[in-house]
């Protein structure tokens, strides 16, 4: 492990980094406590192959307590059964489920919940204020490509608003022929499209620029999630209203306490922007913008304005706080890149990944995610020797535009130290860079480098004992 770019932390950055490490440590401790009562002779321990064998009632109590601890919110714990993990309800486990009747149809009130044995949760970046913070998706626990709506990462700047859709509308005005207002029902009458896309926060991995900081893939890469989104194409609304000559930018505004605003190029809006009301077959989750959000496939997450209430068409960008003081990329020469909105090609190995342990040499099916904001993933390569040699990974499905993809690679670990890496190439020919390549371009000033758009190759080191750790290699 080397630290080629030693971090220079100021007080605020040091505190943030320390708190982040502590928050992750609490989450890891919770996982380990849940694993402790598993069969000690099983290779499944250490959380590596999650087993649904948590049958002890104490565990349910523990899990419920951990929800409050992780979320820092008693309201969330109150919303669910105290004995069950977040999003689940507790039921007594029969000695033999074939010898007694189970629960009645619609015993769930008509809306299902996850099993009481499934405990995975997001955990929150410990910003001082939990109303302006973010939470990460447990990528290492994902069993498919789509992210369950309840585990979709979050980033809020003024909390999650409660919005009555009957009182919500979208106003489209500015440089249009006829400014109009649409209710949610109005919008649902338009022709709609349904598409699978990822959303990634451009701050994903910001702790990892200057030194390996967090242990798990949830911490280093958890600000990406994938959903199926349904809504009206912006181009449909543009045709309906008519665009005036010279219209070149669109301001999107949210109805949260931050009244979040971003300016988006008209070219992007007409290409593939969606005014989305559906997520994974149902209405958007409140934390994902209910009842309406902007979806800009491949653009950084902050631009996908949630709780969308207004689109103002303009000839110039508005230079909002988010697109000047925040989501800009400071380079080594003191200049900052602005409107750096597309998410570059990226991939990460989720199994094995940081803080796991390989029990013994033998066969392991390496797994991960790959994605690009510029189209489809073309190929993914895997290295087990720190990037000296690369082999093509198997793609888990046909690549779709601006959507994550699962990949896998069969690996026989010989018990010697190894460094696992994955590298994504997208259909434009762009190859995911090494951290060294990226820092040569972006510089390494600041405690968190130039903060956003870290898409470098991730390295997981496996030592002789089988411990997997986050390293810069």
């Amino acid at each position, binding site marked *: 492990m080397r630290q080629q770019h030693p971090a220079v932390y*100021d007080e605020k950055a040091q505190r943030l980094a320390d708190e982040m490490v502590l928050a992750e440590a609490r989450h890891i401790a919770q996982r380990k406590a849940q694993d402790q009562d598993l069969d000690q002779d099983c290779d499944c321990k250490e959380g590596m192959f999650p087993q649904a064998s948590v049958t002890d009632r104490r565990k349910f109590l523990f899990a419920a307590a951990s929800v409050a601890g992780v979320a820092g919110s008693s309201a969330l714990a109150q919303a669910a059964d105290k004995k069950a993990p977040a999003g689940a309800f507790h039921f007594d486990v029969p000695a033999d489920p074939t010898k007694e009747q189970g629960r009645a149809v619609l015993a769930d009130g008509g809306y299902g919940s996850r099993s009481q044995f499934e405990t995975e949760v997001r955990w929150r970046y410990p910003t001082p204020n939990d109303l302006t913070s973010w939470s990460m998706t447990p990528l290492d626990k994902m069993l498919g490509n789509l992210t369950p709506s309840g585990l979709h990462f979050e980033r809020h700047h003024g909390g999650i608003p409660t919005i009555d859709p009957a009182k919500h509308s979208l106003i489209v005005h500015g440089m249009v022929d006829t400014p109009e207002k649409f209710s949610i029902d109005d919008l649902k009458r338009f022709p709609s499209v349904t598409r699978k896309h990822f959303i990634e926060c451009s701050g994903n991995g910001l702790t990892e620029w200057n030194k390996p900081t967090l242990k798990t893939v949830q911490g280093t890469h958890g600000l990406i999630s994938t959903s199926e989104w349904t809504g009206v194409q912006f181009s449909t609304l543009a045709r309906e209203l008519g665009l005036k000559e010279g219209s070149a930018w669109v301001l999107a505004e949210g109805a949260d306490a931050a009244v979040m605003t971003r300016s988006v190029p008209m070219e992007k809006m007409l290409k593939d922007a969606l005014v989305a009301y559906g997520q994974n077959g149902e209405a958007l989750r409140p934390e994902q913008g209910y009842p309406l959000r902007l979806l800009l496939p491949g653009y950084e997450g902050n631009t996908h304005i949630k709780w969308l209430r207004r689109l103002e068409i303009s000839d110039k960008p508005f230079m909002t706080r988010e697109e000047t003081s925040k989501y800009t990329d400071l380079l080594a020469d003191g200049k*900052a890149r602005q409107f750096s909105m597309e998410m570059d090609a990226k991939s990460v190995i989720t199994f094995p990944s940081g803080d796991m342990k390989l029990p013994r040499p033998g066969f392991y099916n390496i797994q991960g995610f790959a994605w690009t904001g510029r189209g489809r993933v073309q190929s993914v390569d895997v290295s087990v020797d720190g990037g000296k040699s690369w082999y093509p990974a198997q793609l888990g499905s046909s690549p779709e535009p601006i959507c994550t993809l699962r990949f896998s690679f069969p690996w026989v670990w010989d018990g010697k130290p190894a460094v696992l890496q994955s590298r994504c190439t997208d259909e434009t020919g762009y190859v995911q860079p090494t951290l060294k390549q990226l820092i040569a371009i972006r510089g390494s000033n600041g405690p968190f480098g130039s903060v956003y758009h870290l898409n470098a190759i991730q390295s997981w080191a496996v030592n002789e004992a089988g411990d997997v750790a986050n390293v810069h290699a």
Partner: protein
Amino acid sequence: MFTRKNLLKSATLLVSVLMSSAAFAQGAPAHFGFGTAVTPQDLAGYFSIPPDGRGLPPGSGNAAAGAKVFAESCAACHGDKLQGNPTAGIGGDRLLGGRGSLATKTPVKTVESYWPYATTLFDYVKRSMPFSAPGSLKDDEIYAVVAYILSEAKVIKPTDVMDAKTLPKVVMPNHDGFIPDARPELSLYR
């Protein structure tokens, strides 16, 4: 040359021509008409102020008045010396200092050192500050507190009055600090 509007119309026409008459009868109308007209009242509470100051409201304020507003509504989170407050439950950004630091190993990004436009400060304060009561300040108070922050940052004089005419003319120290996105770098292509 096609304008964007014409392009959309042409596309519509093309689709119409290509469709059979039977399909056309069931096709999408040229105008759906699902929306309702926007009234001035609908837009009354909405604003977004670009660098040219378009949409700035009437009113004015200076640093002296702004100091009072800041002490009452801002200092708890941003510090009485505008130095920020990282305390748990607060976490207000630092607003002052950092000039000349952006190209060093320890860049400090503040309103003074990093923000390129004074209009953005007005827009943001009016939009979402103070954190505990977003959007509660009157326009005169916003002009005043913006004047106070800019004055403390030595961007304007303590006696300068901020209003719809003067604010867009303020030149921030990092006005020329931003460049277009250079990605994707060709060096990263195979």
